[in-house]
């Protein structure tokens, strides 16, 4: 017999070991997320995928589905919290969409659109972060890092290279490059690496590709992010 739980009143089937996020995605239900990626072990850090399970909040990317669970996701209350988290991500870094090559393909931007983020609400930090253009094929713009750790996981778990890491704690957490100089050009990172493909925002950018797809014809110009959930 198939096991099920309810998600916003809808019955969702799941298999043993699946998380709420995995089961929801398979059922075609979109739960906002930034640090979750179906190909990697969940990190549970961005908290955008927070849902209420039997009335208590938890990250749906790390929580195993259990029979009979009552899960709330697309509610005004939870979406307001997700919007506040997104606003905090925007003010913590320098997310200047008009000059960003990732605009239109950016999960952070598309998620903010989805959540109806009309303003950053909080005061901007305007941090001073250097860019790293030392690598011949790839540019690193740390201004846009949201600390999702997808590049860390991809480089460590798929590429076996450990090029990236998160360093520091709390508000001082930042992305570092594993080289004595701290520069990407002094690592064995290549364009073929999985880590070069996974950045949800505009930190890891391929050089000499800028605007090869014009603004207005990009992934989330064509359909909102909620419509990109697979559903099989």
């Amino acid at each position: 017999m198939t096991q099920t739980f309810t998600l916003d009143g809808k019955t969702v089937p799941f298999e043993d070991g699946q998380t709420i996020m995995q089961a929801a995605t398979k059922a075609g239900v979109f739960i906002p997320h930034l640090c979750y990626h179906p190909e990697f072990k969940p990190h549970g850090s961005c908290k955008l995928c927070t849902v209420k399970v039997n009335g208590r909040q938890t990250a749906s990317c790390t929580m195993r589905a259990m029979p009979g669970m009552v899960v709330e996701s697309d509610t005004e209350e939870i979406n307001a919290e997700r919007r506040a988290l997104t606003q905090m991500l925007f003010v913590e870094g320098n997310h200047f969409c008009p000059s960003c090559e990732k605009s239109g393909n950016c999960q952070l931007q598309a998620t903010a659109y989805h959540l109806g983020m009309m303003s950053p609400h909080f005061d901007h930090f305007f941090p001073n972060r250097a860019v790293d253009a030392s690598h011949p094929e790839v540019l690193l713009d740390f201004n846009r890092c949201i600390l999702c750790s997808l590049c860390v996981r991809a480089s460590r778990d798929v590429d076996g290279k450990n090029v990236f890491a998160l360093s520091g704690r709390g508000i001082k957490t930042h992305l570092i490059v594993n080289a004595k100089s701290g520069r990407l050009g002094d690592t064995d990172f290549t364009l073929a690496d999985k880590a070069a493909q996974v950045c949800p925002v505009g930190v890891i950018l391929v050089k000499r590709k800028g605007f090869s797809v014009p603004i207005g014809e990009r992934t989330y110009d064509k359909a909102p992010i909620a419509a990109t959930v697979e559903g099989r």
Partner: protein
Amino acid sequence: MTAKKKLKVATTSLAGCFGCHMSFLDIDERLFTLLEHIEFDRSPLTDIKECSPDCDIGIIEGGLCNAENVHVLREFRKNCKILIAMGACAINGGLPAQRNHLQLTTILEEVYHTSPGLANGMIPNDPELPLPLNKVHPIHEVVKIDYFIPGCPPSGDAIWKVLTDLLAGKEPELGHGLMHYD
């Protein structure tokens, strides 16, 4: 039957490039429809220099980069029932705010003293010039803003949607395709 009183709309560009006002004009012939419902008060379109005390809607383009910007913004807040932040610069500082991680003195030095080709340059100090602020600020950090129209610039359609929603007495809503930060 008396005609419905027209709403007074004031607009201004603070630390912006007038791109949002150009985009506003992109509503094209819909301006005529709009003018059946509104009249412009203080605005670059009328060249009126001060807001009437009974404006219904104030539309602000641009962020705050100098003392005069703050003065104008406060005048708008005081005189307008509804205040709208139009475009990226008003909402998050936009392009002018890209100077925020630099020291203002360093910027002035470079622009007026140390850039190549400058001879005997001096930092402008005419008392008529408003003093620059240390940092460029989004306008919601200084006064309460009621509605935001993101975009650099927002499309004419997005501006039209917000204004017509407001005229219809609805909460403005920008769906997919009208909501853009770039």
